[in-house]
């Protein structure tokens, strides 16, 4: 063949290939067709065997034509493959899923509301440098009462009807014994909060025989009643996420002097009075006061050198006020209809 014949054959191969792959719809068939033209024994290679019969002067032109054909065929392959990919993608894009079907259930676990409230309360007090302290739930009469200035037969014991295990051992009726245990083992300055379960012989919609108190204690050379008020005010604002005021109201606890009930502005009406706050505008949230010198003497802290404040509040009540829980018993029944809400 002449060089011109070879070149025109090459050009025909190009046209042949183009029409050969046009109907092909999958990658594998296209690769087979590509091999039939460009493989070692493919039709382009066969034609190129003629090259050596040509005069040297003709070879570059034929070689150039052959390269062009190879490039064109490869281009055609790439285009065809792209087309297939695009078509497949196009087809996939026609898929329609009912996205309004239910989500796959994941998680579903919850921390108990009281756990959430406790963790949050502890966190808030941690901001003021308070650390968590703990003590046993089964306590000695001495830690629970006597060290707090409440001797046996004292009228103040009527305030807390206590579960006893024996004459000297009881279920703690408040978290205040943790104050005693802390002050027995640590020297001031002291800043602790003690959350924990406590027990009283009491059972109605707002009282449960077991409930959770959070005790706070600060002892230092210059702790004042104002510090107590500021600390509780900080807590109330952070916990209820509202700019609520608090008021301290004179009260009596054996282990604090002066003592105060702590009221906060009603979370529901904010002051004018409603059913929740019994029209007073205030909600009682706990007891507090300055540590009584008697308590310091029991634990060997010099009441002339140190002063301190202590407070206690019920976490059930905090959660009730913030989350509108209507009956204290819900906390302890393990009712999933309650637990899964928070």
């Amino acid at each position: 063949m002449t060089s011109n014949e070879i070149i025109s054959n090459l050009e025909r191969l190009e046209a042949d290939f183009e029409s050969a792959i046009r109907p092909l719809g999958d990658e594998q068939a296209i690769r087979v067709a590509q091999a039939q033209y460009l493989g070692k024994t493919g039709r382009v290679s066969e034609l190129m065997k003629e090259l050596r019969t040509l005069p040297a002067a003709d070879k570059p032109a034929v070689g150039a034509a052959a390269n062009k054909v190879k490039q064109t065929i490869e281009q055609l392959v790439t285009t065809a493959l792209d087309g297939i990919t695009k078509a497949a993608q196009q087809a996939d894009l026609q898929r329609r899923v009912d996205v309004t079907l239910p989500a796959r259930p994941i998680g579903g676990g919850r921390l108990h509301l009281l756990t959430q409230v406790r963790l949050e309360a502890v966190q808030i007090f941690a901001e003021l440098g308070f650390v968590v302290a703990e003590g046993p739930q089964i306590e000695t009469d001495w830690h629970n009462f006597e060290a707090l200035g409440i001797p046996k037969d004292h009228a103040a014991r009527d305030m807390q009807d206590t579960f006893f295990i024996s004459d000297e051992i009881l279920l703690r009726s408040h978290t205040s014994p943790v104050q005693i245990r802390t002050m027995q083992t640590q020297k001031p300055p002291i800043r602790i909060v003690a959350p924990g379960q406590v027990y009283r012989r009491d059972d109605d919609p707002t009282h449960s025989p077991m409930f959770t108190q959070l005790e706070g204690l600060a002892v230092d050379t210059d702790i004042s009643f104002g510090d107590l008020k500021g600390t509780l005010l900080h807590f109330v604002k952070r916990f209820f996420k509202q700019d609520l005021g608090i008021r301290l109201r004179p009260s009596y606890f054996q282990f604090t002097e002066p003592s105060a009930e702590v009221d906060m502005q009603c979370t529901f009406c904010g002051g004018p009075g409603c059913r929740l706050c019994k029209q007073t505008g205030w909600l009682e949230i706990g007891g507090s006061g300055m540590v009584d010198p008697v308590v310091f003497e029991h634990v060997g802290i010099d009441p002339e050198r140190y002063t301190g404040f202590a407070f206690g509040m019920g976490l059930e009540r905090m959660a009730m006020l913030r989350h509108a829980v209507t009956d204290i018993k819900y906390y302890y029944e393990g009712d999933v209809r309650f637990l899964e809400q928070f």
Partner: protein
Amino acid sequence: MRVLWSWLLELCDLDRQITPEQGAAALTRGGLEIEGIEALGTGFSGVVVAEVVAKRPHPDAAKLTLVDVITERGGAATQVVCGASNVPEPGLKVLWAQIGATLPGNITLAAKPVKGIVSPGMLCAEDELGLGDDHAGIVVLEAGDPTPLGAPAQHALGLADHVLELSAPANRGDVLGLFGVARELVAVLGGCVVPPDAELAGFLSAGGAPTKIDIADPALCARYTARVIEGVTVAPSPRRIAQRLRAVGVRAISNLVDVTNYVLFELGQPLHAFDANTLKAGTIRVTAARDTESLVTLDGAQRALVPGDIVIRDGDRIVALAGVMGGRDTEVTAGTTRVLLESASFQPLAIRRTAKRLALPSEASLRFSRGVDPELAAFASARAARLLCQLAGGRIAGELADAYPAKRAVAPVHVRLPRVKLITGVALDANACTGALERLGCAVSPAGDGLAVTPPSWRVDLTREVDMIEEILRISGYEQVQSTLPALRQAPGIHDADRADLARHALAAAGALEAITYGFQSAERANALGLPGSDRRSQPIAIKNPMSGEQAVMRTSLVPNLGAAIARNQSFGRRDVCLFEVGSVFLKRGEGATERPMHELADEPVWAAGVLAGKRRGRIGDGAPYDAFDAKALALEAIRAVAGTLDVRTEVAAVPYLHPGVAGALVVDRSALTSDIDVPTIGSRGIVGWFGELHPDVRARLGIDGPAFAFEVHLDALPLAPPPAMQAIPKYPGSDRDVSLLLAESIPAARVEQVIDDAAEPLVAGIRLLEDYRDAKLGAGNKSMLWSIAYRSPERTLTVAEVDHAHERIVRRLVAELPAQQR
């Protein structure tokens, strides 16, 4: 204590007029909490005061009377039909419920004929107005009653009034009388108190020698006074006295008894009236009771006495249990003509113990056990004597007999002004402090850097500087305290993470719902796990004074309460439940704890536990049923949260409360565990938890329907993992080899893992079970397992030959040691 508003106002002269609400707010602000305000007389309306102007019999009914009444002087009379037998003569006032009146029991009056004559309303008896059970006749006001005609009946009945519910602090016995409350009100609002009339002039008669009083021990009785009133006539009290007593919660009985109650509420001084004619010895003795003595009290009960009781003796004969209850033989009766009136102050603790031991709480013992001011005794006696003379027509015979062996010397308390500032945070000067204390009746004088303060006799609670500081702040107003924050003086220090909270977060994140259940439970529930008697957990700590059987013992495991919660959820249709709890269980200390009373604290280890029943949540329709491996997964999550990468193995175990074929123990190397915690062991490994299917007997005891699965993990035994250090991310690819084994069904998967582990091939990076297949075709008692073992080196890409050789060695060991056949 119920505080009748009009009675309280009678005892003070305030600087300004206030409403009951304002009074309640002032008392509450001062520290006497008013828990509620009750408006009296709201039970009826439309009942008015009317005067009878004429009466005549009903023509057709002998028992009925036609009564003409008027509601304004000179107004037209209205004829009312009345069935009572005590219709008064014209000129006296009655209470007329007019048409439209509402009465207790949701009654609204309409005109209706009575035996043919229409009656526009009715004349009322007490019970018809909800004022007690007296239906003996209609209410007839006393002659000269000042209530104007036509006024609401509430005005005539003392019901246009309010009662404040006062919660008295345990240290304030002095406010258990209205006069003490009046003192507080005056201290807060300004004004002065008005003592009730105790003037005896005009009621005195010569009388005989005063009663002799002998107090054996001044510690038991600081003061005892006695006074004889002669010539009394027992009769019902006037309406005004009875109404006041009713308002504060006491039934009127007779003038003699009512006067003692009246003065008790008015002044806070309990009194006792003896029938003086029953006292023979001429000497009243106050002593401690002797063992074996007893007294028949006025309720008719025979009371055995103990040496701690204080008794009143007529000579040697016991006639009263001091401060608690009088004796039957000497009580006043309808025929009493001479009264011996006791007004005394007894030791609070003794009264409290006696009243508690005999379960005889009373208004008197309540006050004595809080402490009654001995200084009050003579005044209260005079007040009561005056009332007895007025109401029962008595005369006072002779002088007051007054034994006062323990007059309290009140020492002044030194109050340092800088200390006031330090504790309250409020700068109060000497004038402010003095003013506040003087309002409370303290005597104050300057002394050095502060004040010398002498409290009044009735404030026995004020003995220390800090007590005075509280009073200064209380009267100055707690609202003066400004909010400050305590200085941060100390870093929080190093604190271990809390195991319980780590486990809670992990279990909630794993999809379980946290429950919190009571620390106590019923004995039946405590026994529900069916643990052997030798198990420490089968000897729970008992509560001495439970309110109900639900609080009999402290829990020794978290599982029973959780199981019962599952049953409860099932009862209202929630059958698919996965609950966990993290908390303390309570165990007697030491081995073999017995029934002896506990004298030491308990062990309170913290455990995590869970119970699951029903199905997992599905996307559409139900998910797969829970099984033991869900329980195992949660247990491992709890362990991982606390102990990190600690190597935990599973052993097939016999656990009494779990199904014998579906129970596992989670074990770790004993040396890894918290050393001071005792755990059961299997070989060199300590058990830190169990999981499996609840035994059907346990399910039945807890009321659970259908299979349920449980786990327990002893969190306190687990070592707290340090913060994890990052492990290098593999740089080179690994390769996997599978091995299919035919082996006996009885060989647990853990054994296969153990053999691979024991081979200690350094290239093994992990193993995974791909198939656990059981089929009859495999031969009886056989199973097939397909394991995949991953091989990897951190230093290079492994060659095929290296991997094949390592795998070969492992397969050979599996075949030989399990034993198994390679398939």
